[in-house]
Each structure stands twice: as structure tokens, then as C-alpha cells.
């Protein structure tokens, strides 16, 4: 090999490296199957916002919050969506992950029931049968909520069901109550007529934990801080846009996934309710409130998990958009 060829090769290698440096590949792990609250990522993709920010984002369908934590901790995913208590518990047990942004500001945990069952407040759950999947976030957080409302966690009888069977379980009265996010209401209404469907949102009875959050691993934060910053910048911009243009966002989502648009517009419209808070109005979508983060960590602690270090070890708000996307609803 002569000298000129070597020089040409070195040059070519440098050029390729340069080309790769311009776009950062990001594996993004969702929390669950596609739902309306996943529309912003496809809006950002469709409008070329990720690309403009130098990001090549690969969206992966989810298997639950625990799975997201595993994927992000092992580096199979760079950023993921997980229910806040799960990564906190994961970190307490040795996973190297942090919360870097919030999605729902108000907690969407909810209970659905037939109005004729006589339930009017969460305390009425005493003695009832509740259908909920074994690994469901509701079940994980029930003991904390039960204590909050003055019940013993064992006051209800749980029956285990498939996640997709929630509406059917209530529709056929296999259980008195189904725990499901409030955003699942449009799907519940297929099984129970809307005027007969009762719903109680946990947050309205003092449940103050954080829910869906973005998480990243310590190593990704250390090695790609700029990519993380850009990613959050784009997704919160996309959230801002999506919440103000719901039908458009859903038709974009339906280009990528076989979804029923009417159902998903209803779903995303109820998602919007959980962003309409003074915090998001004043400090922007995604804002991490230290006091609420402490509450969330305390919920994990009440489960008997030993929390090491200080709360700030469990989250890092430094990568949120600046200036923030204040939500004007």
C-alpha cells in the first residue's frame, strides 16, 4: 500500500467519522403499547424536528415500566419512559438510571366502576373486588394510596387480569372495580355506557406521586449530555404542539401505527387534562418539582425499599428545555 493510498484512506475514515458525528442515534423505549400519549414522538419525527436537532430516534414499543428500566440500565435503550417510582426503586437496588423529565404532571391513576355499585369515594372500596394486572403500576402503588385514604391495603380483594382485558372485566362485571389510568376512559366507555361509568382519580384524593417520566442511564448522561438536552428540547416542543393540535397529532400517529383515530383523539384529549396544572403553566411542561419528587421517593420508601443517598441522586433536572415550554391552556 503506498503512502497516497494510506492518506486517502485516513481522509475517508475521517470523513465518515465526521458524518456520523453529526447525527446521534437514540434508542427510545416506550412504556407500553402505542397510546395517544405517544403521539408527540411521531409528530417530532414527521416534522423533522429530531433530524434538525441531529438526532436519529428509534422508537421501541414497551413492555411496562420495569422493562424500560432494564433496557435503559443495560444500555439497550438510551432514553425511556417509566412510571417514576419504578426507576427510583431500580436505582435504590443498584440500577444506574435517573429521571430527567416528567410527562404527566397530575397523576393519572384512576379507578373505574359501575355507578350503580354505590361507590362515591375511594373509601367505599372496602370489601370490593378489584381487577388489575399483577405487574400494573396501580397495584404497586395501591398500599401507599390505601394508607393515604385511611384503608388497610388488604381491604380489597385483587383479581389478576390481562392488561388488555380491563374494559371487558368491568363490562361483564367480573370485578366491582378496575384500576386503570384515567386516560383509558374512552376504551372503558366501550364496555360500560358513559352515563353509567364512574371514575375516581387518585390525585383528587391527595395522591401526589409522579407518574410517567423520562429516564436515562448515568453513562448516557455522562457521554451524551448534548444529545439528551436536544432530545428533551424536541420532545417537550412536540408535547406543546401535540396538546394544542390533538387531531393532527393523532392522524400523524396513525400513519405509523394501526390505530383507531376517533378512539385515540378521545384518549389524548383526556391525557391533556393531566398537563393542565399551574406548575406546567408557570414552569413549563416537564418541570420536576423537588417537593413532589420527595413525595414520590417516600412512596417507594413506604414499600420497605431502602433509599440510599439524597433525593437529588434520583433525578436530574438540568437537561430540561431552557427556556421552558410553558403550557397555555
Amino acid at each position: 500500500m503506498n503512502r497516497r493510498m494510506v492518506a486517502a484512506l485516513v481522509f475517508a475514515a475521517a470523513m465518515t467519522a465526521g458524518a456520523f458525528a453529526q447525527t446521534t442515534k437514540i434508542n427510545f423505549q416506550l412504556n407500553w403499547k402505542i397510546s395517544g400519549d405517544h403521539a408527540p414522538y411521531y409528530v417530532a419525527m414527521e416534522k423533522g424536528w429530531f433530524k434538525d436537532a441531529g438526532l436519529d430516534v428509534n422508537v421501541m414499543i414497551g413492555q411496562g415500566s420495569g422493562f424500560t428500566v432494564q433496557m435503559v440500565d443495560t444500555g439497550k435503550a438510551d432514553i425511556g419512559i417509566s412510571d417514576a417510582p419504578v426507576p427510583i426503586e431500580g436505582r435504590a437496588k443498584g440500577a444506574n438510571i435517573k429521571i430527567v423529565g416528567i410527562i404527566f404532571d397530575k397523576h393519572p391513576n384512576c379507578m373505574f366502576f359501575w355507578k350503580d355499585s354505590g361507590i362515591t369515594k375511594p373509601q367505599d372500596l372496602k370489601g370490593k373486588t378489584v381487577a388489575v394486572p399483577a405487574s400494573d403500576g396501580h397495584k404497586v402503588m395501591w398500599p401507599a394510596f390505601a394508607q393515604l385514604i385511611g384503608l388497610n391495603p388488604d381491604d380489597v380483594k385483587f383479581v389478576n387480569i390481562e392488561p388488555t382485558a380491563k374494559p371487558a372485566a368491568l363490562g361483564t362485571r367480573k370485578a366491582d372495580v378496575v384500576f386503570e389510568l384515567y386516560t383509558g376512559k374512552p376504551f372503558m366507555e366501550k364496555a360500560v355506557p358513559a352515563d353509567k361509568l364512574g371514575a375516581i382519580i387518585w390525585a383528587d384524593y391527595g395522591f401526589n406521586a409522579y407518574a410517567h417520566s423520562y429516564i436515562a442511564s448515568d453513562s448516557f448522561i455522562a457521554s451524551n449530555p448534548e444529545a439528551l438536552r436536544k432530545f428533551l428540547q424536541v420532545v417537550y416542543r412536540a408535547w406543546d404542539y401535540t396538546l394544542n393540535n390533538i387531531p393532527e397529532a393523532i392522524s400523524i400517529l396513525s400513519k405509523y401505527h394501526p390505530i383507531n383515530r376517533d378512539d385515540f383523539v378521545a384518549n389524548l384529549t383526556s391525557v391533556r387534562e393531566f398537563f393542565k396544572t399551574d406548575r406546567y403553566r408557570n414552569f413549563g411542561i416537564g418541570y420536576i418539582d423537588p417537593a413532589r419528587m420527595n413525595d414520590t421517593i417516600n412512596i417507594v420508601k413506604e414499600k420497605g425499599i431502602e433509599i440510599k443517598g439524597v433525593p437529588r441522586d434520583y433525578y436530574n433536572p438540568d437537561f430540561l428545555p431552557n427556556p421552558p415550554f410553558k403550557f397555555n391552556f
Partner: protein
Amino acid sequence: MKYLKTPLVIFVLLVIWQTAVILFKIPEYILPTPVSALEHLFLPQPDADYNWVMHIKATLLEIVLAFAVTSVAGISIAILLAWSDAIRRASMPLFVFINSLPIIAVAPLLLLWSGYGLKTNIIIAFLISFFPVVINTGTGLASIEEELLDLVKYLHGTKLQVFMKLRIPNSLPFIFTGLKICSTMCVVGAIVGEFIASDRGLGYIIINSQYTMDSPPIYAGLMLVSLFGVALFGLVSLAERLCIPWARPAGQEL
């Protein structure tokens, strides 16, 4: 007339289904009518783009690849086990162990190890469907008349010759039985794989629609899946008839 019976039975069942749903006013989220399911399949829907062609292609590719991988690997494993008694005794419990794994429980781990998409789908389909191929082929390779083996021994035939000229041809009917079972299980495996590890394919449409209680596309997807199962089973049966016409007693059709 012979070939008209099956479609006729299916048609009658569809009519009963359609009438029952209308007659008993069954809500659509519990059971849609077949007409509504077929409409979702063939007519453009105002409120969704199911993109059937793309998803059908994905599922067909998975089924074909899974079936190819499973049959080749399954038959090879069986030959290896029959070749050496030591290997068979050492590894048979392992295969039984793998076959008894509840795939649904293992799948999230598979996903962590081998990621999302086609590869994981095929691994899942393989794990679900390889066992009948191994067992059937193994039985075929073993069930050979002692007199024939004695004769070959007398003629100084080698072990390789015994396999190539006696054991493998003799086991063909067994292999095809294994492949027929495998063909339908591969379809199940591909769909289970899509439930867990994919964002395309009929299994993905089904699981996605279950989440929103959008039941007509679920049933449309199921119809297609069963159709693929029947088609693959039919192809294997056809290949069987062409390869070993002597093995089938007259009058028996399956």
C-alpha cells in the same frame, strides 16, 4: 362436490355467527359481525389506516423464515441425537426442558438479550414449534426393522450408509407429520412473537386493537392468521404427497 364441502361449512358458520350477533344484540367490543371484520380488512376505514399489506408481508416473512429455520434445525437435531446415543442421553432432557418453558414468561428476557424485531420473533417461533419436529424425526429414525439393519451389517455397510439409505428415507413419513404440526405452531409462534417483540405484523394489529377494544380488526387479523396456518399446512401436505406417495394409505386425506 368434494372440494365444495369445506367452503360451504365455513360459509354456514359465518352466516350463523352474523345472525347470532345481530339477533342477540352482542356489543361489538365483545364480538363483531364477520361482515364488519371483513369490511375492516377490505374497505378503507374512515377512522384508521390499518396498512394490512405491510403487516401481512411482515407476518408471512416471519412464518416462512420461522418454518424454514425450525424444520432444518429440528431435523438436524434429531439426526444428531439418533447418530450418537451419548449425545442423545446427555441433551434430550435439555430439549424437553426448553420445550416446557412458558414462552410468554421468557419472552421479555429474550427481548432484553436479542432486541426487537424479526430475529427475536423467529427465535420465539422456533422455541414454540421445534419440539414436534425433533420427536417425530427421532421416532422415524429409530423405528427401523432389525432384519434390515442386520442385512446391512452383513454387507459391511457403514453407519453413514445406514443413515442415508435406510434411516432417513424410512423416517420421511414421520418427518412430514412433525412438519405438519410445526407448520401451524410456527404461525402461533410468529403471532406470539409479534405480541411481544414487534411493531408490525398481524399480531401487532391484534394486540394494539385489544388495548383500545377495537374488535373488528382483531377478528380480521385472526381470520388471516388462521388462513395462513391452513395454507402452510396444505403446502406441507402437498409436499408430503409428492415426496412419499407410497406412505399414504388410499382414501386417507389430511
